[in-house]
């Protein structure tokens, strides 16, 4: 089974995870820029974080046979801190990078005026840089937040096929399906979505424009959830081709709209040469 995890925060994961992910079939990931457990207080720490998403993290991933791309944005939670507003000035520089395949995660957290402003500004940046957008939907007041998100996306004039609306559930899937945007589902150990509920949604809504991700991060989460959904699909009668559609073709089709997705096998050689990440690994 070949897997593309379209949303996973590898910065928070260990090399054990990379090894297990490769073993499970994961060959490519996208890491969206988001908040860390600890709120940041200055734009400089964002620059370091973005540099990590474009430097150290793809380097680490390549050593385990996994291709790593990222999305860059000021996330909604931290959009509320006025000290971080200058992060918006950094974005054009980062959105020019090869490894950036979308603007994201943008969207709503508390649904404040600051979040409104930062969201529409970044939707504009996506249009300017010809990049698709990854939109986070809020945990609290989810249905209202998703509806408002879709309104703002519509007003932005971005074509819906360039927008992925993530963290959907039974309550929010229909309105996103109707909007023409891509539908993302984050499968978690016990909150957002689980494997069995995911199967039910796939049976009801079909496979078109559906992406499944682990959204694994520093919280309780599981980087192998994509594989578990693939297994659950097969067990409930979906074909190998169906699994490939959801776990590979759909994420590739969405992010390939950036023109920057490079899925050649990461080259081994120098990066496998017993360096600091794989230290202790027999040659």
């Amino acid at each position, binding site marked *: 089974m070949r897997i593309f995890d379209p949303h996973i925060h590898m910065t928070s994961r260990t090399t054990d995870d990379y090894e297990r992910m490769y073993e499970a079939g994961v060959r490519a990931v996208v890491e969206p820029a988001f908040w860390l457990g600890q709120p940041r207080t200055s734009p400089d720490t964002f620059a370091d974080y973005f540099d990590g998403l*474009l430097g150290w993290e793809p380097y680490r991933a390549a050593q385990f046979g996994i291709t790593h791309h990222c999305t860059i944005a000021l996330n909604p939670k931290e959009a509320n801190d006025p000290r971080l507003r200058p992060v918006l000035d950094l974005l054009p520089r980062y959105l020019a990078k090869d490894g950036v395949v979308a603007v994201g995660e943008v969207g709503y957290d508390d649904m404040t005026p600051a979040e409104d402003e930062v969201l529409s500004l970044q939707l504009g940046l996506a249009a300017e840089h010809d990049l698709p957008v990854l939109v986070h939907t809020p945990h609290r007041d989810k249905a209202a937040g998703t509806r408002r998100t879709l309104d703002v996306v519509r007003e932005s004039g971005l074509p819906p096929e360039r927008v992925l609306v993530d963290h959907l559930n039974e309550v929010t899937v229909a309105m996103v399906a109707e909007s023409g945007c891509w539908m993302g589902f984050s499968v978690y150990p016990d909150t957002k979505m689980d494997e069995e509920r995911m199967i039910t949604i796939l049976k009801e809504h079909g496979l078109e424009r559906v992406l499944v991700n682990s959204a694994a991060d520093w919280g309780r989460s599981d980087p192998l959830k994509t594989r578990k959904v693939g297994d659950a699909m097969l067990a409930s009668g979906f074909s190998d081709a169906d699994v490939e559609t959801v776990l590979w073709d759909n994420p590739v089709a969405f992010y390939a709209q950036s023109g920057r997705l490079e899925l050649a096998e990461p080259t081994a050689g120098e990066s496998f040469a017993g360096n600091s990440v794989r230290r202790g690994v027999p040659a």
Partner: protein
Amino acid sequence: MTSPNLSGVELSEDGARWLETATRRIREDERALAALFPAAGRACGRGPIPSRPGWTVDQAVRAELLAALPGKGAALGETLFELYAHGDAAERLAVLKALPLLAGDGRLGDEGLPIVRDALRTNDARLVQAALGGYGADHLSDHAFRQAVLKCVFIGVPLASVSGLDRRADEELARMMADFAEERLRAGREVPPDTWPLMERHPHVLTKVHALRSAKASPPPGDGLDGRA
């Protein structure tokens, strides 16, 4: 006439046109580099250059973009550092590889050293290796150069790729390598084969290592060591 930076590079018509426009814009206003430098791979390709082992097309094109910068000395050093600091891994690599080319015409002096020092602090073997190109070999202090060579051994950068090693390997580096070899032997681990020639230039540093090896009845250096780096 083709610039030496582009030797061996065959660009498509679109790529060549992009590069011509890009260098012109940079000569007019160096701020244009911020958006052009990251786009080089997308515009001109990233394939290897057959006649220049270790070089790729995007790196050569980026070197050509840097050559169009009008400044020199400290101002040029600052521009390069700023570009490097905002670069992804491929851009940083390209800046490092361009340093000896930029220094070649005497415009840069030792103003590129902050970039080399930064790269040597990373854990990315590609950046460390590139930092030890001709520019690093010519400008790093003895202490910094020795530390960098030792770091190569730790992170698996082959010493054959370190520029100027033959010229700069001194007795103190041999002593450091011998201490490292002793540590490895005491831990029952292997000593990378490419470190022995550095120690053998100053055989007296090897006294303890020889004692350890004969105690363990190991073969002498260079004889029967396995090839694992």
